[in-house]
């Protein structure tokens, strides 16, 4: 195969027609408040892990909603379940339960 010196790049736009939204469905079935998030960022602002890593609970929630779950397993391991995000959320989202179900979904890959 000829070496072209360059490759065709995959588009980086979020394609909501082709993305797999099964994890978002799974989580909202088990935790209804998953869909109440308005992206205000209070959780990320107060997050302990966010102070020293690039973990961002607001982004994690949104990425799952859009079906962009690559690298999620690595990211979610940074959460220490301290619960500060749950205390501050103005919408009453049960963030700890969501993190719990994300971990569950990731460990039962293919069967959720």
């Amino acid at each position: 195969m000829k070496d072209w010196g360059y490759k065709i790049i995959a588009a980086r736009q979020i394609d909501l027609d082709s993305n797999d939204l099964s994890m978002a469905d799974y989580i909202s079935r088990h935790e209804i408040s998953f869909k109440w998030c308005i992206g205000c960022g209070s959780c990320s602002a107060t997050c302990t892990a966010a102070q020293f890593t690039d973990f961002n609970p607001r982004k994690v929630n949104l990425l799952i909603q859009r079906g962009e779950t690559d690298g999620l397993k690595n990211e979610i391991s940074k959460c220490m379940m301290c619960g500060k995000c749950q205390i501050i959320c103005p919408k009453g989202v049960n963030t700890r339960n969501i993190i719990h179900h994300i971990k569950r979904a990731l460990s039962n890959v293919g069967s959720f």
Partner: protein
Amino acid sequence: MSKTKRIIIIGGGPAGMEAAGAFNHTDYQVTVLEKEKQIGGKLNTWYKLFPNFKSGTEVKEYLEETLKKGKASVLTNSEVVNISSDKNNHQITLKDGKTLTGEAILIATGFQPFEADRKEEYGYKIYDNVITSVDLERLFSSGKPILTSTGKVPERIGFIHCVGSRDKKSGNLYCSRVCCVTGVKQAIEIKQHLPEAKIFNFYMDLRMYGQDFEELYIEAQQKWGVTFIRGRVSEIGQNIDSTLQLKAEDTLLGRPLKMNFDLIVLLVGMVPTAGAEKLGCSASLEFTSGKFFRVMGKPVQTNESNIPGIFLTGTCKEPLSLQETLTDARAASAKLISYLKEMKED
């Protein structure tokens, strides 16, 4: 013996009608001039009103009843094209050349929706499945089923906020105030019609400023499952099967987003009624930067124009909701009454 003072109200929409009703217990001679063939203004178009889904027809009937109780004369098909003022004498000229004179004028010319085809990138009037919020409201009123141009039941419907508002390219920098809550209301209404449909609202900010507005938004999101995506829509294209391809930015993720829709609704903003600028110039009235009529001294003088004797009410001054328009009309009438009572006889 002073003669009866005459008030001319230009505009027979909600503002004009409520203002006229407020003069019912006075002795003034009130004439309402409406350019269309029926009064009611935009109230003839709205089906259910935010935030509590009150029927637009009910409000119109209330306004008509109030008018009937008084002695105001209502002339339809009477478009005003000129105002000439000379101290306490204001003469208006109609399109057919007839004139009327009054001691005070109340301008209630209202607004018209932004012409969405001017936002070329959204393809209104080019792609069949792109409609405006006004079109959707008419569709609700008609009772006809909501279908796409190919006759299928839409499964995915998109709402685009801020069409023609907050947009230098459209020529309107201001916020039209009521489109956000209209978008939330219509999203809920569509879900009530089509429970299986997936609705997406594309917004820059969600301006839920009024009482019960925020609660309506929470209801849309939590009860009806409407998805709100923060980001501007850059363009709409059409696929081979007449569905629409939408491109937007998901600003909270910082990445572009693309998805197909069966139907897209453009939430159009408010611009001053056609002809209002020409009319205002004939009277030497001042305008705001958005070309609405300018009031003299906010927050206190919100109904007085720069010409003594010419008052302003309703959406001809700025975008307002129906509720605010009715309140403003009553305020304008009160101001007009004290103006006339204090008027020195020539």
